[in-house]
């Protein structure tokens, strides 16, 4: 049953009470480390000293059970830099706490959180890259999104956008040129897999050191599709100008899921209630997007394991096309939907409604047969099982350490789904299940996606039932929202939804104007991709490619 409360863990429950977290007890646990308190909309924030980061975080992790570092937000104020660690629990993501680490403006640096949460390694690299905070003792503090030669930190206040990026010729040499074999180990060979490669699912560059056919060392190099999405959102007004951007993060088909992430954060920030009818439409369209996205994930994974242009890939595209058509009827667009609005949706279901419902029902009726076909063709195939079972193994501990979410986490038996654990929309009124598999391998991740398509179909069916019977005079699609939205100054919120790939979170800080002062995107693909190295070291190249496919990354969302 989906609505069961997840059991709170028995030992690590400092501050857990009936009516939410008791932050005073948590503060007592941390003792003198806390030098201040902040109140964010989603959780309380403890302000700590920059050299206390590891102590505080490991106390929270080992004694209070905050095993999930969802996001690290860095930003610059007039008087200080600040890193915020957004912590959650995999058992119950509604128990949140923020750890706020201020550091001086003239020499911004604080301790790294990497030894406590591995996922912080990449988040802190991004913070260093874009905002310019140094993290002491970080094992590998390099730029992650921008080129190594970039000068300045684009999200810091004194960054001059007009300054040309002049790079000396010696540093401007072909970045892929440096592919000599390692002098310490002449038996290995360095190969650049990507950024132009048939199986990297976009412009991903994987620096690979091979020992024969096996992978000795691997390092994903991202940022080729970095489009300053965070900064663009900071330059748009809340009400209308930000909503088109989320469609362009996970651009393959998950548009409405992404839009919902922004809608949820902004609505909670500005205290907007969404009418029930609109919530049902949102839920239905979001799940349609999830089906489209999972169908694509399955098809491209088949591409990686079967070879180019095989039956599975084309079947997946054929079936995704049906969903795409339904979404086009609803939103007027195939991929860049721009359908959600703060406080509701853009417009009601298309007329004639019966025809639209019939179309969805036809799709749902055909779906079980199609899934059966996929199971015959893909998961039931012995060679496929030979290739995917026990390859790309990602144990549950690693999932938590790397902050992986979505089907990747659920394929490793981590029962975590925000739709159930931190309900939003209409999910808690509907009957559906969270799918998990215990295999921790490529095969489990494929199975999870295929089974999630069934669950999404269940949700859509219930939504269609509700929408069909909804009284005509009560079809309220939009709450009353001021024309210009100006949330109170210095309100901060971090809110996440279950995107197609996992937890898609948005951090917004308002400064009293109609545009956010800081807009931070927590991309599920970013954290999921971080696990690639642990999954593939020692494996064969084909398994690395398969693991990459099973992570189902979209570079638009990784790089933002």
């Amino acid at each position: 049953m989906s609505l069961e409360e997840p059991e709170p863990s028995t030992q690590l429950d400092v501050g857990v009470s009936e009516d939410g977290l008791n932050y005073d007890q948590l503060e007592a646990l941390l003792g003198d480390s806390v030098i201040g308190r902040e109140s964010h909309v989603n959780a309380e924030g403890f302000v700590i000293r920059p050299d206390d980061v590891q102590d505080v975080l490991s106390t929270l992790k080992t004694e209070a059970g905050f095993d999930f570092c969802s996001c690290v937000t860095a930003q610059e104020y007039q008087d200080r830099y600040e890193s915020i660690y957004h912590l959650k629990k995999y058992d119950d993501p509604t128990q949140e706490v923020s750890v706020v680490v201020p550091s001086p403006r003239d020499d911004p640096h604080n301790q790294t959180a990497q030894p406590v949460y591995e996922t912080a390694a990449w988040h802190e690299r991004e913070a260093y890259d874009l905002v310019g905070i140094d993290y002491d003792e970080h094992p590998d503090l390099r730029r992650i999104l921008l080129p190594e030669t970039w000068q300045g930190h684009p999200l810091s206040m004194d960054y001059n956008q007009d300054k040309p990026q002049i790079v000396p010729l010696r540093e401007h040499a072909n970045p892929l040129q440096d592919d000599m074999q390692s002098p310490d180990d002449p038996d290995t060979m360095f190969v650049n897999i990507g950024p132009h490669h048939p199986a990297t699912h976009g412009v991903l560059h994987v620096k690979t050191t091979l020992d024969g056919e096996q992978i000795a060392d691997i390092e994903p190099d991202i940022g080729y599709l970095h489009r300053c999405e965070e900064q663009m959102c900071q330059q748009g007004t809340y009400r209308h100008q930000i909503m088109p951007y989320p469609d362009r993060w996970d651009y393959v088909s998950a548009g409405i899921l992404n839009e919902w992430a922004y809608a949820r954060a902004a609505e909670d920030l500005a205290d907007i209630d969404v009418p029930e009818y609109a919530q049902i439409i949102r839920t239905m369209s979001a799940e349609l997007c999830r089906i489209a996205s999972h169908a694509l994930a399955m098809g491209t994974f088949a591409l990686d394991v079967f070879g180019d242009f095989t039956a599975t890939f084309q079947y997946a595209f054929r079936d995704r096309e049906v969903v795409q058509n339904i979404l086009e009827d609803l939103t007027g667009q195939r991929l860049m939907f721009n359908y959600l609005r703060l406080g509701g949706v853009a417009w009601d279901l298309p007329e004639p409604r019966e025809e639209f419902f019939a179309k969805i029902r036809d799709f749902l009726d055909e779906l079980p047969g199609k899934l059966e076909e996929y199971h015959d063709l893909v998961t039931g195939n012995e060679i496929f099982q030979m290739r995917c079972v026990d390859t790309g193994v990602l144990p549950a501990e690693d999932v938590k350490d790397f902050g992986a979410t979505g089907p990747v986490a659920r394929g490793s038996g981590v029962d975590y789904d925000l739709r159930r654990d931190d309900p939003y929309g209409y999910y808690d009124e509907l009957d559906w299940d969270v799918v998990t598999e215990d295999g921790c391998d490529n095969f489990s991740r494929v199975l999870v996606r295929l089974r999630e398509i069934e669950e999404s179909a269940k949700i859509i069916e219930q939504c269609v039932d509700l929408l069909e019977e909804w009284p005509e005079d009560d079809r309220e699609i939009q709450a009353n929202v001021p024309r210009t939205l100006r949330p109170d100054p210095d309100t901060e919120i971090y809110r996440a939804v279950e995107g197609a790939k996992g937890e898609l979170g948005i951090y917004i800080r308002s400064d009293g104007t109609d545009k956010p002062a800081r807009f931070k995107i927590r991309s599920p693909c970013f954290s999921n991709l971080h696990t690639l190295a642990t999954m593939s070291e020692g494996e064969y190249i084909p398994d690395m490619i398969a693991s990459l496919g099973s992570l189902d990354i979209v570079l638009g969302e990784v790089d933002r």
Partner: protein
Amino acid sequence: MQSETPLPDTLANLLGLDPSNPLVLFVMAIVASGVIASGLLALVAVSGIWGKRKITAAFTDRVAVNRHGPAGILIIPADALRLLSKELIIPEGVDRPAWDLGPLIMVFSALAGFAVIPMGNGVQIADPETGLAYVFAMASVASIGLVMAGYSSNNKYSFLGGLRAVAQNLAYEIPLILTGMSVVLFAGTLRMSGIVTAQSATLFSLGPVAIPSWYAFVNPFAFVLFMVANLAEVGRNPFDIPEAPTEIVAGWQTEYSSVYFVLAYLSEFIHIFLGGAIIATIFLGGPAGPVLPGIVWFLIKIVGVYLFTQWARSAIPRVRIDQLIEIGWKGMLVLSFVNLLLTAVIVGVIA
């Protein structure tokens, strides 16, 4: 049905020349080879450029080419022109003679294999006593071309592809030939026409229909073994590991463009047809078949094998290189030895 005289002799007789004159025979052999090679290339053009797309499209629920001519058939000249007019890019640092020779060796070794195949209606260039050994040898020469292409391309993906090709061919050549040997044990000859003749006897009769003693019926186990080994030999799913587009870009052919790419691509198809021709000859009675002329039956059989490879290509996942080596050395090799031994015992007992 099977003509006793090879094609060059027939041609010489037709022109009223004396076939016992070596010069005449030499010229006629060249003419005959030209005719057969042109026929094969035409077959490749139809099946490789147009047929493959239509077949794959049918498997994957698409339409494929349909703009030029009836059912898009005119895409063949259009594509030929397109491919030949592309720029030939020669990457820096390629090992020139080897890099140029690779694709040529692949194409010509496969074409040369057809010299001894009896295609029915007297279409056979030569019929030496060692026919089957020759055809296997020619089919294997292509591996040298693959290694040359992979090694000389100065590209790591090509290099990996070339190495994979060698490993794969070693693992599959032996079971392939051992299985072929079991047929030789039955037929008692390596001569291709002899093998075909040996299959013309009636195995048993189903009422009025006489089932011939094709070795696919006599020894289905060997037939299946040979079909699988042949998939690996021609590098089609589940064994398209030397190319493996999603893993190592295009393997040994990564750096080839324009005409060289055409040659590489051609050689793949001719290899598939050569594999089909070997299967048709030693397992499916060569050109034998009712009503239609022999050469038509022969073509039907090769195209049948080709369709099988395309089916596998569309529906079966690719195995990993280490799994392939294991299947080859631990599975196929053992099975083909068992097959050879059993055949020897059976043939010995019957004789």
